[in-house]
């Protein structure tokens, strides 16, 4: 048995030439980090409103002040709402507010364990004795209620990253289970499950998800909304996976090793789990990665259409609802409003890159890993 470190080193060497896989994993890892440390990264509580600053533009980080002097530490100026109707802002260049790392802010629980009030970025008043409150630091500006867009986007990652992937995982698991059973049992079990799958596949999914969601009260706490959405996804999303798993099972059942397992009297459960499932794992995994964006986007679409997660909670979908507002788009800088759109695209791109990296190579990453471990 090789020491773990050297095993990891060989595994790492095998990653060469898998640039898309690595890029995908890096992107997803970044999103996971953001989701875990969401409160640390966010500058303000995503629900806290600052009514004096609706639709504020992004704070511009400066190194050079109005007098033309350069400062090593970036700073922002306070801004003032000069025209409440047009929502125009002007910068007040009297006072600089330097950027601060790990600045104090609202308190939260890191990992749900430690209470802390540190945030990655913040601004401080120039001199602490001064009673003037520091201006808010809005990387992406504020929305119509003066809530910090950046913080909302960061916190939204949590909800969207739980509902989509968890829904995919559970739906895949159910689909694989049904597919394995249907493929192995054959006869009427197979017929019943596959006709059911046909029905599910013929259903207009999004319309049905809409209808199913509409069957429940719109205002739900985030945890229950997430549970509801995941349930709907699982109930409606198993069919495709079941079909694939069934086909693979039928194919594998003809192979000698399965026949051998049957002949020595292995129980069906053992055959399915020990012999068929591992050999079907690769296409099933690839299919899971294909399904993931669809589920993620279903959640986004639902929240976008106003039947997913409700305000003031934040999800990528209901943040995008702002972006579909024509008057906002016409009057204001579009980029910060469209930021959620880019974030979603980046995430889906990461998933696709992983999927592509998986299918590029004939041998699955995991078997290659175990092979290198064995050969040495």
């Amino acid at each position, binding site marked *: 048995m090789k020491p773990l470190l050297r095993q990891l080193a060989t595994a790492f060497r095998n990653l060469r030439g898998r640039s898309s896989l690595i890029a995908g994993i890096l992107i997803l890892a970044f999103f996971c980090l953001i989701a875990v440390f969401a409160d640390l990264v966010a500058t303000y509580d995503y629900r806290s409103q600052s009514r004096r600053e609706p639709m504020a533009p992004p704070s511009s980080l400066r190194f050079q002040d109005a007098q033309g002097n350069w400062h090593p530490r970036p700073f922002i100026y306070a801004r003032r709402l000069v025209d409440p109707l047009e929502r125009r802002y002007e910068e007040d260049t009297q006072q600089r507010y330097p950027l601060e790392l790990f600045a104090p802010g609202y308190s939260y629980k890191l990992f749900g364990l430690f209470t802390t009030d540190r945030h990655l970025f913040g601004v401080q008043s120039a001199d602490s004795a001064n009673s003037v409150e520091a201006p808010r630091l809005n990387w992406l500006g504020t929305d119509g209620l003066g809530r910090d867009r950046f913080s909302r986007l960061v916190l939204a990652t949590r909800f969207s990253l739980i509902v989509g992937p968890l829904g995919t995982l559970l739906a895949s698991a159910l689909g694989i289970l049904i597919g394995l059973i249907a493929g192995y049992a054959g006869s009427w079990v197979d017929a019943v499950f596959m006709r059911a799958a046909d029905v599910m596949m013929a259903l207009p999914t999004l319309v049905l998800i809409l209808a199913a969601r509409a069957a429940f009260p719109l205002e739900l706490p985030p945890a229950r909304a997430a549970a509801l959405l995941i349930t709907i996804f699982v109930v409606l999303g198993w069919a495709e996976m079941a079909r694939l798993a069934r086909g693979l099972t039928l194919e594998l059942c003809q192979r000698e090793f399965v026949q051998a397992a049957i002949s020595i009297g292995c129980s069906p459960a053992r055959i399915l789990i020990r012999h068929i499932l591992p050999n079907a794992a690769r296409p099933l995994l690839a299919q899971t990665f294909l399904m993931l964006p669809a589920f993620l986007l279903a959640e986004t679409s639902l929240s*976008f259409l106003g039947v997913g997660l409700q305000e003031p909670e934040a999800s990528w979908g209901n943040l995008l609802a702002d972006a579909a507002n024509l008057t906002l788009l016409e009057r204001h800088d579009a980029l910060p409003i469209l930021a959620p759109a880019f974030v979603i695209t980046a995430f889906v791109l990461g998933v696709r890159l992983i999927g592509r990296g998986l299918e590029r190579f004939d041998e699955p990453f995991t078997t290659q890993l175990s092979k290198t471990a064995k050969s040495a």
Partner: protein
Amino acid sequence: MLKLIFYRFIQAALILLLISFLVFVLLVSAGGDAISALQTNQQISEQTLETLRRLHGLDRPLPVRYGMWLGELAGGNLGQSIYFQAPVWNVIQPRFWNTIALAMAAMSIALAFASTLGLAAARRTGSLADRFCDLSILLASSTPRLVLAILALSFLARTSLIGGTATDWQTGTWLLRLLPPAFILSVPLIALLLAQTRAAVSARLKEDYVQVARAKGVSERLILVRHALRPALNPLITTFGSSLGGLMSGSVVVEQVLNWPGLGQLSVIAVRSRDVALLMGIVLITSAAVLFGNLLADVMLRLNDPRLRRENHIA
């Protein structure tokens, strides 16, 4: 072939019946109905609400309502939409054609783009076309329609290229308004079709009969189109069939964002207003479209591939 079509029609009828029952139960047991939206209105008494419910038959038990709905359907009537105060078919019909037009346009764009680029990429691996194809597949498959629709909206809002309301469209404006949603709908399809075309055609080009054709001196273009493309069409046809139905229901978000008056937009209205008859009509029509797409693909597969015709597969 006729036997296949006949069997498929019977199967489709049964599936539609099952779907209609499931959706009906789901919608009716949801709690709240088209009338409950009026509840917040102070001027409408509880009694009026009850009368309205009785008028529309909303107070009857579920099996009775489903039976009534089925009875009407048997008579070729989809029922009455409470929200629009009109027969469901009259509400659906114009929007149905709009959605069909959108789906067709998206499908044509995707097919045209995917077939040309796919063929060009399949000719030589590692060529410029191949790499461009790689990139397009990745980008097209990872940009969600919702995002595209919103980007298009923000772009169109700035250019004010198109305006006006749905009622005063001229034919020119209609076409102009059709294009953005059609392009957006076609994007994920392009990724799918492109990947399949390239994989299938390049696999065929490695076959022995292509070598024979080359040895005979058949021109490269003819080989590509006649010898490689035709057998490679099978997976494309399957995708075409299955995405035809998907285009009908997949356009909900795009139609909603870009304000295209089709079935997708209508279904959002129907869900929000709890208009059961209307939603049932939409679900029925879109499901039928999915089933029809699958049937169409099967028929086309048999036309394209003589081997399938000989087998007597019906399932």
